């Protein structure tokens, strides 16, 4: 057993933890003021699976995915180091696998070959890619970076924030070490805690999906990576041409310790052969080899290569058919046929079909939204729109001078908007429910919606009625919407003082010609920190 080899495994673990820490840091700081040293969406942009499918379905070249190209090049040269060293979801599973160790069933005997479900990952990869070629983008449901982003950002972070915030409040109330506690609170709010407790729709679903994947670790370590992950399958296919391979020198006693240690099931037969595409270069085999003969090198005369598994012809055809079949199944969308899309998309998502083709459902915009109003769509817009973002104004409105969602979108499904563009971007149109609205239904003055309307000339106006307020006797004025000015930000709906459903609500844009607006003011309004500091540079490479 060589000490140097063990050190390599240690280095790998340190790198893994470092990347996971960076990932978590970026998730936490995907929030105003977005002052992160690297783009908040860096990890999502590293996924070649998302890159390929998004470009196929949107039929555009996406420069934002250059990091994914780098991952491909690295994989060609070194193999699946991304899976073994970088992927935050892989590292998460390594950690959860460790906890499951006690209950895991006995290791499969690798000589039996791969289990029948091993090729599911190739099938998912092919089916999703074929569907993307026909304009159906569902890669985000399966991509591990997207799953990790949703798990951590939309489920676990709000839980952690809840516990952290409540604990600090308890400490403040208990008044122990007040100076220290208030310092901790200040630091916590600056670096970790959310401005306000985030609450996301369907967060338990994301938690359950994650727990389900993690519990598969009871069967085998890295079960997801071995058998299900489409990004892993893609890198597997690429890595097969990598010249950097595991190589066993003379002196192997076929003790099979390496085979038992390999969490990917990449070592077959007598322990000397490796399935190149399965190996994620974790260097565990090196570390445990008692004879120190297991090594990695660029040697060309390496012939100890086990046949990598792949889809059978039948499996391949099945996956292609499945991908094609998904197109009519998802696109025959009753919600859209019925005009049921009664909600509002984030700013800049103007054409629903284009938006669905570009959006990878990663949840970045939902996490970053400054008011917390962006929420995951469940089934109300059809299965094809599952986990895309929508604005729920009663939870949070679209802030007039905020451009964060476009700044973190990895595919420009939400475009990067300048402050001026944002203020003339129309999300929807407000309308009144006169049966609930206080001045209409109760003859009392109210005007909260008019007061807070952020458009400079007011999209909600009050008109004299000639009537009197029934209690105060003041002249009664009632609110009206000016659809030609309204941008549908939902602040009126958010602030409507009625309990429960608001009397003023934002629905889809009344008519297409209301979409683009004349600029409302000069381009001199750059006082805000987020725009000044990040600007468009937030997305450059």
């Amino acid at each position, binding site marked *: 057993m060589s000490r140097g080899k063990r050190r390599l495994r240690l280095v790998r673990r340190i790198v893994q933890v470092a990347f996971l820490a960076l990932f978590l840091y970026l998730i936490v700081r995907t929030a105003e003021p977005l002052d992160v040293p690297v783009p908040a969406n860096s990890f999502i942009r590293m996924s070649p699976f998302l890159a390929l499918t998004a470009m196929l379905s949107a039929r555009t070249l996406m420069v934002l995915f250059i990091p994914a190209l780098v991952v491909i090049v690295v994989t060609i040269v070194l193999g699946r180091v991304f899976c073994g060293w970088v992927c935050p979801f892989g590292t998460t599973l390594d950690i959860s696998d460790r906890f499951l160790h006690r209950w895991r069933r*006995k290791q499969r005997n690798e000589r039996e070959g791969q289990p029948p479900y091993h090729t599911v990952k190739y099938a998912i990869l092919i089916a999703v890619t074929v569907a993307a070629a026909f304009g159906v983008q569902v890669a985000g449901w399966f991509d591990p970076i997207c799953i990790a982003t949703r798990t951590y950002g939309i489920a676990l972070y709000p839980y952690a924030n809840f516990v952290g915030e409540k604990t600090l409040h308890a400490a403040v109330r208990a008044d122990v070490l007040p100076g220290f506690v208030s310092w901790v609170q200040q630091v916590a709010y600056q670096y970790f805690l959310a401005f306000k407790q985030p609450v996301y729709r369907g967060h338990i679903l994301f938690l359950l999906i994650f727990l389900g994947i993690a519990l598969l670790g009871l069967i085998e370590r890295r079960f997801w990576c071995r058998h299900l992950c489409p990004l892993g399958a893609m890198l597997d296919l690429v890595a097969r041409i990598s010249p950097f391979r595991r190589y066993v020198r003379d002196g192997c006693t076929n003790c099979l310790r390496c085979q038992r240690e390999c969490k990917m099931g990449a070592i077959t037969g007598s322990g000397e052969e490796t399935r190149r595409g399965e190996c994620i270069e974790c260097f565990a085999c090196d570390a445990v080899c008692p004879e120190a003969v297991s090594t990695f090198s660029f040697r060309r005369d390496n012939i100890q290569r086990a046949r990598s598994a792949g889809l059978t012809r039948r499996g391949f055809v099945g996956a292609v058919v499945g991908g094609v079949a998904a197109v009519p199944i998802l696109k025959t969308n009753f919600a859209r046929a019925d005009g049921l899309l009664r909600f509002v998309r984030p700013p800049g998502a103007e054409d629903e079909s284009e938006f669905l083709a570009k959006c990878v459902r990663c949840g970045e915009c939902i996490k970053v939204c400054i008011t917390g109003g962006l929420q995951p769509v469940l089934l109300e817009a059809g299965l094809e729109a599952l986990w895309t973002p929508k604005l729920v104004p009663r939870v949070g409105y679209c*802030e007039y*001078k905020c451009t964060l969602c476009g700044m973190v979108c990895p595919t420009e499904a939400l475009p990067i908007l300048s402050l001026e563009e944002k203020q003339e971007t129309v999300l929807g149109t407000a309308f009144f429910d006169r049966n609930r609205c206080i001045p209409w239904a109760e003859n*009392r003055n109210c005007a909260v919606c008019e007061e807070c309307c952020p458009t400079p*000339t007011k999209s909600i106006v009050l008109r004299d009625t000639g009537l009197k307020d029934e209690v*105060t006797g003041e002249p009664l004025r009632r609110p009206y919407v000016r659809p030609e000015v309204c941008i549908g930000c939902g602040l009126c709906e958010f602030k409507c003082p009625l309990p429960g459903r608001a009397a003023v609500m934002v629905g889809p844009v009344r008519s297409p010609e209301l979409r683009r607006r004349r600029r409302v003011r000069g381009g001199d309004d750059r006082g805000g920190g987020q725009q000044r500091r990040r600007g468009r540079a937030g997305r450059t490479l």
Partner: protein
Amino acid sequence: MCPMRRITRRSFLRKGSALAGAGGAAVALGLCTQCGKRTSEEEIRLKPLKENDLSRDIVVARGEDPAGITKAALAALGGLGKLVSPGDIVVVKPNISWDNLPKYAATTNPDVVRTVVELAVEAGAAEVHVFDHTLNEARLTYKRSGIAEAAEQAGARVSYVRGQNDPRFREMAIPAGVVMTSWPIHGMLTRADVLINVPIAKDHSLTRLTLGIKNLMGLAGGERGTWHPDIAQRLADFSSAVKVDLTVMDAYRILVDHGPTGGSLDDVRETHTVIAGTDPVAVDSCTTTLFDMKGEDIGYIRAAHDRGLGELDLARISVREVTV
């Protein structure tokens, strides 16, 4: 497969007591997070008016420099030292509610806020706190208004209000309340010795003008929108409980239409004025003249006057004018 582990008495006791201990600790922590909510009403009381030797006049200062006229106005009242004693905790309450640059006159002029904070620090205040329960996102308004930076530079502690359910809002009694007998109010007002209200004068559709008394809404938590049908009475109730020691009205720029949000320079008038005084009703009443109105025109000024909270009649207010 691992063999079934037998449960011995020893292991049962050991694991059982560990579990019970962990559960007990969790319950204790849970109770701890709840305990503060049961504080009795008597313990939290809003600050009273502070005895002071400031002039009872209303000072109207005019000039080109917002900091200069603020200084001049406070000097004409006798100087902030006559209100703020060394060691006092001072709350300076500007309007930071809207996400607009100072030139749109939707938020208090940062130079006015800076000057008031500086003078309070000079007078020996131990802590000067600046905050507002904003309507737009606080992280944006604090920045874009320039107030957070100005106040911090001048030595204030600037804090955010984290929405209407911020735990610092505590349900407090309004003993003289007519339509409202209690409301969640910012806890800082139980600690503070002095409250200096630093509003901006501007248009407001429902109340016609938003001035000093209306600016106090930024100290209230809860669903403030429900005040609107009875806004005049509600504001009078609220200001009967929240005692303002000094009002420094920023009228350097005023917003004459499309308030209180603003956003168009067409609606802004450069009036280059600061109006200060200890009587919150009189300061508001005086300020209405900048909009060619009278105190009687504004419902909440009338209501506050009727409750005896201050003088509304301009003829009975002694106004001192200063030009810098």
